[in-house]
């Protein structure tokens, strides 16, 4: 069985949204869970967050940034094309329940995974303050969707082309310095961003959850490729996570493990681009 792409759009020059027919997964998945896909018989297995789902339509929405061979390749898939393998829902469903006032920070493509959580938090009666960031204005994603499900929304850009000039942490720091109180912080984005958020929130004793996007193979706890040290213990992102207490994550180790295939990833992407160029 293959999995058909029902809709596809470029939401920025770097990222793509796809709606995929996967009724079994749509029936069961919850915010914060992820899928693993493999494009074809020679593909690798990569995890992607479930950005949205529609139980009635039997669809799962994924949003991804073109960063490596597989995501560049997937970006070439059009409506009606099929993905060979699409597995899920994986990871723990985290029932956030009623936390009070929650700061939700999404950096870059991290807005995609935080969006379903924001929606669930808002529906659960929490006061949601969202801060989303990108390098430039045209790379900001899901702004309207986030605004619709947040009580307050702040936008930051690295170059100041939209919203506050700076990082999401700068905006959060402003709010904390103003004396705003939060019961919990949720942060999803690149590792340096999540690490910076955790450094800041630790100073304010603000409990912070992060969602990790580590390198996986099976996604069911079998291989340990995705392991991280949390509070001195080894955890598997695929089955114990992907959400962890950010103040206890060993960020140095997480960063190193995330970079361990950089030369191969570069080689695979160059080869893919060369192949495409010759076609």
């Amino acid at each position, binding site marked *: *069985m293959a999995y058909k792409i029902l809709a596809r759009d470029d939401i920025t020059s770097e990222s793509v949204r796809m709606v995929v027919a996967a009724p*079994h*997964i749509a029936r*069961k998945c919850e915010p914060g869970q992820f899928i693993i896909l*493999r494009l074809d018989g*020679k*593909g*690798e*297995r990569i995890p992607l967050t479930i950005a949205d789902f529609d139980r009635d339509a039997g669809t799962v929405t994924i949003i991804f940034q073109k960063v490596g*061979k*597989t995501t560049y390749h997937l970006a070439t898939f059009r409506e009606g094309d099929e993905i*060979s*393998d*699409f*597995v*899920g*829902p*994986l990871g723990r469903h985290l029932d956030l329940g009623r936390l009070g006032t929650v700061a939700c920070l999404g950096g870059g493509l991290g807005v995609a995974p935080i969006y379903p959580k924001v929606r669930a938090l808002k529906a659960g009666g929490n006061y949601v303050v969202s801060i989303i960031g990108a390098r430039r204005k045209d790379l900001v994603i899901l702004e309207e969707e986030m605004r619709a499900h947040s009580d307050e929304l702040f936008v930051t850009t690295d170059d100041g082309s939209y919203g506050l000039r700076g990082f999401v942490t700068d905006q959060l720091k402003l709010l904390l310095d103003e004396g705003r109180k939060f019961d919990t912080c949720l942060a999803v984005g690149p590792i340096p961003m999540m690490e910076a958020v955790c450094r800041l929130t630790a100073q304010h004793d603000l409990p912070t959850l992060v969602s990790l996007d580590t390198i996986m*193979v*099976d996604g*069911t*706890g*079998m*291989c*340990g*490729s995705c*392991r*991280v*040290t949390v509070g001195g213990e*080894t955890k598997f992102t695929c*089955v114990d996570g992907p959400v962890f207490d950010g103040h206890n994550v060993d960020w*140095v*180790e997480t960063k*190193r*493990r995330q970079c*361990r*295939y950089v030369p*191969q*990833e570069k*080689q*695979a992407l160059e*080869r893919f681009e060369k192949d495409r160029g010759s076609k």
Partner: protein
Amino acid sequence: MAGNGNNEKPAKKKVVEKKYPMSEQPPAERIRNFNEVPYGYDVETAVEEARRCLQCKKPVCIDGCPVEIDIPGFIEAIAEEDFAEAIRVMKSFNNLPAVCGRVCPQEDQCEKVCVLAKKFESVAIGRLERFIADYDYEHGVAPPTEIAPTKGKKVAIVGSGPAGLTAAGDLARMGYDVTLYEAFHAAGGVLRYGIPEFRLPKAILDQEVDYVKSLGVKVECNMVIGKVFTIKELLGELEFEAAFIGTGAGLPRWMKVPGENLIGVYSANEWLTRINLMRAFEFPEYDTPIWAGKNVAVIGGGNTAMDSVRTALRMGAETAKIYYRRGEKEMPARIEEIHHAREEGVQFDFLVAPDRVLGTDDGWVRGMELCRMELGEPDESGRRRPVRCEGSQFEVECDMVVVAVGTYPNPIIPETTPELELTKWGTIKVDEETGMTSVQGVFAGGDIVTGGATVISAMGAGKRAARGIDAYLTDK
């Protein structure tokens, strides 16, 4: 013809004392490729080997086989050069003979009790099993498998490893409507992700899976049961009347020593899955990357450790060494695997265990600190327990470590099926005879019940559970 004598049956047969040898790829050559090591018997050799069988009146070899193959029966047919009959006999007991002929520990089972083995070498039962399976795949001589009229009852099998494939095949033959669920994108379980190409070519596995499908089994890949459907949902809204859980012992056990998360430390599962299932050895033709060390240490003494270390050589390691905490005699790996590893240049260090993995400043493996062991009193497994020799610590250099010290049962189904009774080790409790769990209509077998064991014992459990399910559904 090879061997003793001519085509006419001699009046008095002289016993050939040793097994006919099976030719193999030479070590120096094979460590540079992933092709299968032994080539298998040709027809002449197989027939001669089959004629060594004494055709005992009371064949004890059958008692030594977990799936109760009529061993003298299929061997006699080979001896008579009736290969269609030989494969018919074989497949009436065993759905996966090409697998079993390659990976079963025959030396501890059928061949161990072979009467010939009392004075000479046993009949090469495993090699003959492989021969007849391969002969059939090449020539297609097997008569169509008899399938009972449909019973109109649906059975779900969860996990497509040796236990699941066996249960699925047997139930389909009994006339059940069988769906086999697999979490990965390809069926086979540990046969797919764990056992390397050079021991079990994936093309052979594909043929075995296709055979099980040909019996009417529907295979659904990419289905993580427990996540996408619970067992309760399978028996409820999906209308299966029974389910079999054969999800194996797929979780890696760690050494729990400092440095285990350094880059270059792999669980055996990750190392082997990247290479076997994802074919990272063909990167960049295949997309999955791998990083392979030049100076490789593998921790453990089982078949998985041997597979890992031999794979490391094929991935370009200059040195590859097994570190095992007990002695050579205590190694659980098959003798054949240890022998092949030695031939290929694998080094062994016994009675030694890592205290820590040492890293470079940027987080890569640079070596290990090890401690010498000595053997004390026997433990619950009957093997002498390794005891640390304090003060014996020493360092070795290596740039990659594979941890192959065992596995735990996969918890996804137990966690999502709270009614299932478990043992203190997290394995599922079953009735030994029927394979039924504490939940009506839910059966289990293989490593999820026993903890990490062999392919053939899982197949035996699949076979028993198929009978148990049939009895349960017949009475229901």
